[in-house]
């Protein structure tokens, strides 16, 4: 269980951070006007930050979804015993970059279902067959082990 520490910064906002297993302090400063900043502590001096990166609300949301996507996969795995879930990347230049999900015919060829597509940090749940795929998308898929391996191959080579 991660122990998030909340520290008020009078006149500025709040700092919320936790110490990772490797001993790095990772957290977010939320300013009173709603801006946020990602902070990561230095290795040799955990009191200070190696960087503090200002994020717009959109960027913060994107980062949260990027980090949240594997979490989604893990959650699916937990909920359904015996079902394999995998996050398959659609690399730019793949035969299906710019074509619809229906064109891949994943369901009929590999018996794998696409339950969600993660694009630029946003999760698109239950995509329809006419969902347009693009390079850099991540497909959250459910199926057998062999099916998933085959599906990865299909996405890469057509």
């Amino acid at each position: 269980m991660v122990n998030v520490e909340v520290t008020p910064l009078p006149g500025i906002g709040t700092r919320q951070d936790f110490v990772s297993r490797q001993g790095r302090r990772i957290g977010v400063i939320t300013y009173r006007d709603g801006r946020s900043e990602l902070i990561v502590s230095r290795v040799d001096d955990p009191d200070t930050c190696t960087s503090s990166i200002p994020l717009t609300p959109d960027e913060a949301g994107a980062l949260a979804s990027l980090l949240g996507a594997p979490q989604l996969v893990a959650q699916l795995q937990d909920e359904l015993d015996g079902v394999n879930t995998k996050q398959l990347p659609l690399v730019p230049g793949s035969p299906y970059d710019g074509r619809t999900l229906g064109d891949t015919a994943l369901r009929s060829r590999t018996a794998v279902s696409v339950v969600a597509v993660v694009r630029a940090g946003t999760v698109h749940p239950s995509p329809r067959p006419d969902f347009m795929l693009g390079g850099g998308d991540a497909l959250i898929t459910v199926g057998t082990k062999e099916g998933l391996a085959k599906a990865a191959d299909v996405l890469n080579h057509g």
Partner: protein
Amino acid sequence: MHTPAIALIELGAIFFGLGVLGRLAWKIGISPIPFYLLGGLAFGSGGLIPLEGIEEFASLASEIGVILLLLLLGLEYSAAELVTGLKRSWLAGLVDLVLNAAPGVAVALLLGWGPIGALAMAGVTYISSSGIVAKVLGDLGRLGNRETPVILSILVFEDLAMAVYLPILTALLAGATLLGGLTAIGISLAVVTVVLLLALRFGRYVSAIVDSPDPEVFLLRVLGAALLVAGFASQLQVSAAVGAFLLGIAISGSTAENATRMLEPLRDLFAAMFFVVFGLNTVPSTIPPVLGVALALAAVTTVTKLATGWWAARRQGIGRLGRARAGAALVARGEFSIVIAGLAVSTGAVDSQLAALATAYVLIMAVLGPLAARFIEPIARLAITRLRPATA
């Protein structure tokens, strides 16, 4: 011949000149306050260019500058933050107060300025510049550091101490006796407590009086309320600045945030005018005689702030580098030291050399503060690695 045209040209030249100086200051990483003071010294009596015809406007503008400086100081922390800050950091706050007021008191007594001069100098050397500190911490990316809450809570304590200190100073400067002084202390403590309670319980009603969805109406209301409160406070022999400060504390929540955003540029404008006028009223030739004292005072109070930060950070279990950073961040003195010196000098109740000493002192500390905060890290790192073989 004093026509509006000449007054406009003079004012325009001042503001433009300050703009150029301010840009230069931030470019080399220090606060613009010393430049504004130097600008003021350069103009005016005994300076390079005497200014005539705008004195009246300049002195009113500088008065508004003080009111806005303290209004925004009050707005900076909510009443809840002040109360929790007080609970959490009162010990560190007291150490800060004793260590840093003492050198000012000692110097004033040695120079024979009497108890009131000592009280004024205590304030000048005690209070860190929260404006410079917050800016420097943000610029250096240290807001996420573990020692930063320690620094901020000391600033919160200083903020509260000001609320008690300013009315006492004003009362004593106005010539109150010992008994009168004690009454002033009692009254100011009571007033601050009442305002804090009001702000905690009924802050939203105070906010509702000034709040408006229309920015123009909002600006006029906040500014109007601040000047009204300051004016009445001044009429009642409480300083105008204190009135504005307490109003700032009473306004809370989103109203306070909006007011801060809206008033910041106005404050910068009028506060710049305040520093210039303070510089104007200081005769440049009075500075060299006190320069030695100012340097000594600067050296001592740099060490005392370093010690304060070190001690406060160590209590929170922060490593040695962090302790050094906390101390160095607090070194900067600025706007409020000048506000206190301005209050003291304007009544004529203290030695006029105090203005010269305060000017010289702030000139040094406002430059030294940001530099100390920036360069403490490599210096401390070096010192710690050098010391390690010796201690091991």
